[in-house]
């Protein structure tokens, strides 16, 4: 469970988040949506402790994040940032670094770490890329490696900032399925997505941010009923119910 309580934060002297309250529950996918600059990534960075809080608190499973050490926090939250370096190491090693929070001095990876990293790679279907250099991979493949790295972290809370960037439509749907499976496993999933249709499709709850404030927090149906998407992005989303479930599409 991630509880964001009246969080205020910003860069330099400018406040970006003006008292955010939000709960992301275990077994649910909570997605942040909002226009560029609305504070979605900033909120994730505040949750992870990368930004000092100017006010409020972030509580993880009943414990204030302020009281946790960095490695303790990393065992609870796996994070996939938006902009990432492409280090000159193999994909296998990259995924293995997901086990770093569990290492004790002198911090060497053991057989158990390798097994878990291998399972994470299998789950993403990238085992055969283990020996390939990250720089040799396409954007989509790299993204899968980063997601596998987050899975190898085996945290109960998974936070991802635009994880479907660079994934083709087939991979996006597989990713959506995987997020569903993770939430069914009892994980708390907190995502930032720019693809509103995907957000509506996979999320249990959506938080719509506007200028550093929560405009609306609710189920996809509630978001659609309030016409929040139209207010945020200037587009209208229509629904079509079929036997396979609700389909969403933009009205052009």
């Amino acid at each position: 469970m991630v509880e964001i309580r009246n969080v205020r934060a910003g860069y330099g002297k400018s406040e970006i988040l003006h008292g955010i309250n939000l709960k992301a529950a275990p077994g649910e996918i909570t997605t942040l949506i909002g226009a560029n600059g609305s504070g979605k990534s900033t909120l994730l960075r505040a949750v992870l402790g990368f930004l000092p809080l100017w006010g409020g608190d972030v509580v993880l499973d009943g414990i204030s994040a302020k009281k946790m050490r960095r490695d303790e926090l990393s065992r609870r939250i796996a994070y996939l940032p938006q902009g990432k370096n492409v280090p000159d190491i193999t994909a296998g090693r990259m995924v293995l670094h997901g086990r770093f929070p569990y290492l004790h001095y002198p911090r060497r990876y053991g057989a158990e770490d390798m097994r878990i990293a291998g399972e994470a790679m299998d789950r993403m279907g990238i085992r055969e890329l283990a020996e390939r250099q990250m720089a040799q991979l396409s954007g989509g493949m790299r993204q899968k490696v980063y997601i596998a790295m987050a899975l190898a972290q085996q945290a109960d809370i998974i936070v991802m900032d635009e994880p479907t960037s660079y994934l083709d439509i087939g991979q996006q749907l597989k990713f959506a399925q995987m997020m569903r499976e993770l939430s069914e496993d009892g994980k708390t999933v907190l995502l930032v997505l720019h693809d509103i249709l995907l957000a509506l499709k996979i999320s249990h709850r959506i938080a719509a941010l506007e200028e550093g404030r929560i405009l609306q927090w609710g189920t996809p149906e509630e978001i659609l009923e309030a016409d929040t998407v139209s207010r945020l992005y200037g587009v209208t989303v229509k629904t079509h119910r079929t036997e396979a479930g609700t389909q969403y599409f933009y009205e052009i």
Partner: protein
Amino acid sequence: MKDKGMKNREYAEKKEYGRKFFFWGGTALCLAVAAFSLCLGNIHFSPAQLAGLLQGGGDRVSRSILIYARIPRTLAALSAGAALAVSGAVLQNVLANRLASPGIIGVNAGAGLGVTLCCGAGMLSGPAVSCAAFAGSLLTVLVIFLFSRRARASRTTVILSGVAMNSILNAVCESITVLDTDLAMLSIDFRVGGFSSVSYPRLLPALGLIALGMAGLFTLCNELDVLTLGDETAQGVGLAAGRYRMIFLALSALLAGAAVSFAGLLGFVGLIVPHFVRRFTGNESRRLLPMCAIAGAGFVTFCDLVSRLVFAPHELPVGILMSVAGGPVFLFLLLRRRGVHDSVPIDGKRKRRKRSGGEVSGDGDEHG
């Protein structure tokens, strides 16, 4: 037909074999160069004579040459080469810039200024000189790092700020030696760099610092690798990125400062050697750093040997030889970087802008 997985495994095994060959071949070559360095000079020893002298045999003059000239000189060349190469590799990873090296971004010059001030103050003991060199190099690294962070400087700007620091520190050093004529003679040898006047009292404290720095870095290989993933990814897996960056900068300054304290301002070792070694070992520190130490030690000892023999009985300072060899290599590296996008701040975070194209934004171009 072989499947992809098997092909990748075969490729990995082949690469691992190549790495092992490079490691053991490099070690053997380094040991051979060290043996030549002990044997060759104005007076040559045969391998049999060398073995006899090391066991306490031979005449007194030859033994004195070996013990008081050749051994400290070879030890100095080996340790300075290893320290500068490892320091360069660490700086390149921490600053996310392959053009960073202690000689180019002013770390050596900072150590040089520290030594000049120390000698100018009349403190000529080995430990005092080593500490002054370390303090000078550490202060320089800190200034460059803080400047880069504050200005959110791109990698090019980091290098240029280092070049500016280099220039300022050298100018201050020059001014001191102009004002203090006693220091002028010392300064010439020191600025060129070389091992002709190395002695045990100057060498041993520095060797202690180098051993300390190496031990620290070799035990922190995983942390260094995680740091190169970028600040947010590193913090995401539990590494206190800011704290570890400072630790790595301090350790690389320790190595460079200790080497400069007895070898003077040797240029380009910290730049060329990591570049060369990375081609064989990749970027993983557990392979890169030990190999940099071996290759750096072998390279500097070889250059010192050549500088001793090529104009024998006269001696060319090794720093000159290395600059002559290193300058063209640096130019070659600059040419190879032509067209490479270079506007990412050292913390890997771009300023907000609309993303275009399908590539991951970040500094992959630098590491690629």
